[in-house]
């Protein structure tokens, strides 16, 4: 799992920014940012309820919007757990790219 606490102090993107992109990119206009908890499961019947096609769309959105490539699905199971873990991953990658 990604260390979300460590990254909170130096956030590059926020969970709200990510949620906006998810709502816009996946056509979930009926869902508001405040209805998606930071720790809510993105996939599966509990939580936001995204499916396997959404997972592929999400990787493309993250690459386009934040310039971060997710190359390994094994790795992405943790990354995609919740908005928190996804933001932590994006920020960590962006920080690494800067160095």
């Amino acid at each position, binding site marked *: 799992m990604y260390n979300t606490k460590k990254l909170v102090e130096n956030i590059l993107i926020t969970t709200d920014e990510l949620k906006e992109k998810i709502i816009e990119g*996946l*056509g*979930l*206009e*009926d*869902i508001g940012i405040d*209805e998606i908890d930071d720790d809510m499961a993105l*996939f*599966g*019947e509990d939580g936001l*309820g*995204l*499916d*396997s*096609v*959404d*997972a*592929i*769309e999400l*990787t*493309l959105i993250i*690459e386009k919007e934040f310039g971060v*490539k*997710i*190359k*390994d*699905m*094994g790795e*992405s*199971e943790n990354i995609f757990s919740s908005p928190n873990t996804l933001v932590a991953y994006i920020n960590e990658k962006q920080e690494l790219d800067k160095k």
Partner: protein
Amino acid sequence: MKIYDMDNKCYIDIKEVKNPKTKVEQLSHVLHCFENDIFEVIYDKSQPALVKYIKSLNKDLLYQDGMQFLYFTSGTTGLPTGVFKTKDNSIKQAKALIKTLGDRKFNRVVTTVPFVHIYGVDIGAVVPKLLDIDIWIKENFLPEELITEAEKEGTLIVTTPVFIKALNRIKKDANLSGSLFLTSTAPVPKEDGKEFHEQYKTSVSQLFASTETGLMGHKIDDEEILKIYDGVEISEKYNMLRVSSPFLTQKILKDGVLEDVKPPFQTEDIVEILNDKEFKLLGRSSNLAKIAGKRISTQQIEGIIEAMDDIDCALIKIRRDERALKDEILDIYVESKNGLDAKFLRKILKEHFGAMNIAFKIFNNVKIVRSSVGKKIGFKEL
């Protein structure tokens, strides 16, 4: 032929698996049944409404002599239709597909699809079985991972149009000319087929099929004309395709009643037949939407909505957005005093279809227009 589990990096045995959950388990079990002539009911256990429906059926109806698999597909009346297939159906069909590969040699199949539908079973499992090549499988693929696999010479990729579109969007500099992609029934738009071929120097063979008929025709990249498979005979009635072939089901289970199927089988695909070997697909008269790889009857969803309090009538039209990975969106027109709330509908759909995110847009404040015989034919804005 062996199964390679890419997640756990090991070969796995073909064996009986009670209540298979992962793709690897599904594949192992399906091949075990196929090899040992064991009948099995194949369906997507992640769809609660389908599971409930199948459990409600009389078990004597499900087990029919001489059949290999019973699949469930979304019926146009709203209830799932059971489609029985024999082993002979699958073998003859696989041979017809292999013939279209010509002299090309493949050393493995990589599949992104599950084994809960006929496409996964017949193309992702039976074809490699007949070719006697290994099946490489992973629970979830990302587009980048699929490119890495397709870069390896002699790989036959069994996938869906979603991945073709996704690969076009990432535009990676990769030469995939040593591999061939096969995609399922949903059409790959002409421009996407062309772009894919030019970007990756490979081809996508698009299989045109249905659960009832099995394979009917195929086309490559940006071709518009479908060529029929060996053994398939086509004709039309009211511009809709009729098919006879050795891959056709002989028995279906419709609305809980067994029916014999006599060829030619009438599809709901609107076509222009060019000659006895070629046709063009012009559209689909059917009310079936394809969402996340699953066929869903719009009539079934209309029924779900109309069962809600305060809803008088619902009409669903399928809208296509070819740029999106989920390219079929449901426009839902609702006749109701208080309107239909999108969040509530999303919750109800989840209860029926499980973890499937259906793309839809609701239009409240309309009056549904009916024909003289009561059929919903359109709407008027109020």
